[in-house]
């Protein structure tokens, strides 16, 4: 039997890369990439991964575009014949307090983080139903759970994933498909590299574990929920936040 396949949106980012790497142990991994067609960057990433020993396929699509996701699904099906795991990991931030937030800043975040989840899941679900098997894991955030100053848009998009996942979990529970969320806390990624050191120290002071999380620690949680043995876990949220929010 050929390997199961796993699609990871935002697969080339900080957490995305770690998820891709971890899943290559058990799956044929396909990373989704979109940065306005900058394929060179993606190819460079793919080469780096290969040199590090991770063989990862790559496909290009704008996750916020339904037709793009439809094409992507068809392409992956043509290449591999089945899709077993979907990791909705793509996300952006565009922080500002609500009183200064523009309509565009709201819409870009909602589209990239939430509409993308609809677009990908809607296109891939029928493929999973056909085989009576699937794992859908959506990466939310601690700030979707607790809210955060300057993130009305981001927190709305991330908390929306909970209602989405719980509803879909109920619909497909009898089809061998589980639907769950993971809510990472603050993870050491390039996204955090821009944060000032004193701000970062302030954040770490609030984390009971006393440090930032590692991308690989999120990836372990993903691998756990993606495994065949986790078939009874559905509609759940798994916090990976070092105790910062309980």
């Amino acid at each position, binding site marked *: 039997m050929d390997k199961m396949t796993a699609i990871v949106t935002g697969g080339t980012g900080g957490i995305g890369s770690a998820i891709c790497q971890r899943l290559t142990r058990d799956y044929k991994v396909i990373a989704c990439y979109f940065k306005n067609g900058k394929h060179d960057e993606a190819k460079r990433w793919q080469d780096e991964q290969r040199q590090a020993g991770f063989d990862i396929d790559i496909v290009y699509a704008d996750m916020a575009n339904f037709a793009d996701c439809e094409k992507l699904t068809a392409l992956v099906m043509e290449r591999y014949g089945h899709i077993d795991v979907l990791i909705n990991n793509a996300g952006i931030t565009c922080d500002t307090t609500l009183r200064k937030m523009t309509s565009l800043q709201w819409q870009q975040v909602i589209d990239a983080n939430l509409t993308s989840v*609809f677009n990908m899941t*809607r296109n891939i679900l029928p493929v999973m139903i056909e085989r009576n098997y699937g794992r859908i894991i959506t990466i939310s955030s601690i700030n979707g759970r607790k809210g*955060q100053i300057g993130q*009305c848009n981001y927190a709305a998009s991330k908390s929306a*994933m909970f209602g*989405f996942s719980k509803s879909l*979990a*109920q619909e497909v529970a009898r089809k061998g498909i589980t639907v769950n969320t993971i809510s990472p806390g603050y993870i050491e990624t390039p996204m955090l590299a821009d944060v000032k050191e004193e701000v970062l120290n302030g954040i770490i002071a609030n984390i009971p574990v006393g440090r930032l999380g590692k991308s690989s620690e999120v990836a372990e949680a993903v691998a756990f929920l993606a495994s065949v043995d986790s078939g009874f876990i559905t509609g759940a949220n798994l916090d990976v936040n070092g105790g910062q929010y309980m």
Partner: protein
Amino acid sequence: MKADKLALITGGTGDIGTAIAKQLSPMFGHVVALDILPGNQGELWQASVNEQGFQNVMFRHMDVTSFEQCEAVIGKLIAEFGHVEVLVNNAGITRDAVFNKMTKQQWDEVLRVNLDGMFNVTRQVVESMRNQMSGRIVNISSVNAQKGQFSQANYAASKSGIYGFTKSLAQELMSKQITVNSISPGYVNTRLMKGIRPDILQSIIDLIPAKRLAEPEEIAWVVEFLVDEKSRYITGSNLSVNGGLHMY
């Protein structure tokens, strides 16, 4: 009563919206139901509510999905009547379908009204509230945001999106004496429910420990509680009003 203060309710002419408008009427100078109704139905609604003794309730046509319209209508209300003390984001729609059959349009319509609408409207009142150092924002979510619901992936996403928004904005505005909370009603006795087949309705009621639907007034009462001056320390909170249907 705060005579010079304004309370705004989106989806204000629906059954829950109407109950909220009546409930807030004695508390504030002007209560405005913002809604989309065809022809002169908004005026008829207002006349009927006024006739019942709620003289300070008025109707204004506003589509929450249009940022520009929200800016214009609410800007005009502020210029005309003064400070917005209360905003109740109550406008909501459903477009139920099992996910496997849900169209992009069904997804978009629900998200545009229920979630983007909340942004479009709230964005217009924050400045007014900050300047006055007072305000109450109440967002109406749903029990199905808390527990999920078959054939409501779009609705539950939009309604649970409200929680992250509410908690973030609460943190931003607490230093200005403005509170932001959500209410998650269970099944409420509205026109919407009357369209449901009697046997299905009964099976829903059987699941509710209270063994009945909520009345719109029971939701409106919770809104009154949250907008009361004495509730000033409650923020970023969610109040379940569901007859015990979901406890968390």
